[in-house]
């Protein structure tokens, strides 16, 4: 029967910093781990593989129609754009439909005059301020402006303060 020979490695004198072999082992491991770590970060990190650089998404800035199309003292729901257009006299506001709790689309309940979320029951006043349910902050208000041809333009990339309105 062939025998397996066990040879014990000769231990060098000195600690890990003074023994040459130990030092090189340590250094090699270090380089290996740093390299792997760098590749992993490039793969999984926030600039990595899972984070595309170009997005094919709907434009954040869009026209929603002429101001006179929106009835006075009304909240108009634009489902496709996921915004509400609130008109009070000649003042216009664009309020996000996206619930600040977990991103469901809130519903304007005309009879109660509040926004309600179907997912977890968050409630907001007409000005978008949360008052009941789990929502941690008010609904976003978006920047509104008039285009050259007189249409109302909403820019969802610009969140503005609640008291700012577009007065025409």
């Amino acid at each position, binding site marked *: 029967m062939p025998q397996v020979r066990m040879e014990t490695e000769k231990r060098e004198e000195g600690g890990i910093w003074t023994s040459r072999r130990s030092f090189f082992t340590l250094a090699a491991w270090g380089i290996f781990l740093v390299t792997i770590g760098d590749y992993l970060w490039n793969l999984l990190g*926030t*600039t990595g593989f*899972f*984070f*595309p650089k170009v*997005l*094919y*998404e709907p434009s954040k800035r869009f026209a929603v129609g002429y101001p006179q199309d929106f009835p006075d003292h009304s909240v108009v729901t634009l489902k496709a754009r996921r915004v509400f257009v609130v008109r009070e006299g000649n003042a216009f506001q664009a309020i996000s439909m996206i619930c*600040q*709790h*977990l*991103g*469901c689309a809130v519903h304007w309940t005309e009879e109660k005059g509040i926004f309600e979320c179907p*997912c977890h029951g968050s409630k907001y006043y007409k000005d978008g301020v949360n008052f009941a349910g789990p929502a941690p902050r008010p609904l976003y208000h978006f920047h509104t402006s008039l285009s050259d041809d007189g249409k109302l333009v909403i820019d969802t990339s610009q969140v503005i303060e609640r008291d700012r309105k577009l007065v025409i």
Partner: protein
Amino acid sequence: MLPDLKEIGDKITQNNIWKSIFRHGYEDTPRNRMLQILGNVWLHIHPTTVTKGSINISFTWCLGGLTFFVFLFETLTGVLLMFYYTPDVNRAYADMLDLSNNAIPLGRLLRNTHRWAGHAMVITVCFHMLRVFLTGSYKAPRQFNWVLGVILLVLTLLLSFTGYLLPWDQLGYWAITVGTNMAGATPFAGYQGPFAELFGFTIDNDIRFGLLGGTSIQAPALLRAYVWHCIGLPAMAGGLMILHFWRIRKDGFSGRL
């Protein structure tokens, strides 16, 4: 005249080809009983003998084994469904309707079983955990296997969750909206979570973005859910199951088993 069945049987089994495939006879001897387990790559996950108490159905309720079986069942039905499902926002829902309306032979049964068995797997895995806890089977030296089990429980839930978006219907769309927005609320790493600004996380570079592949649920999110559901998560779960089962054998059965 009736054919001699024994003679035909012998003709089939007493030759080199048969014996090259089946190494031992089927005769019921203690040796063959052992060989059934030892000589079979699928069955040798078992020990050759077990204590009498351990096959009492009221001890394990077969829950771990059932969970594994459901996983295999889901793999099979899932692969079949992949033949007729396209992870594309314009086609996914229509593919679902085709399946449900039996435009594909067995389509409805296939989709139903895949969905319900997914629910069943969550139930069996939960109750398997309860059983293992109540029998104290996680105690030394089996602690690490319990940890593996917890990870497998999480993977089971994630598998169910990613599968939820695939029909691209209202149910899945809003469940994934809520689920990924939770990721967006992660402290430090989600754009709506506490301390997000510390590391400069915004809607287009946080965890949620990495999950969805965009700032809202669009085509990339569906494709990602599909790949995670069909390949990423099952591969992880499968790998961990191998570890889980291996450790059961190596750590030994608990207590009175």
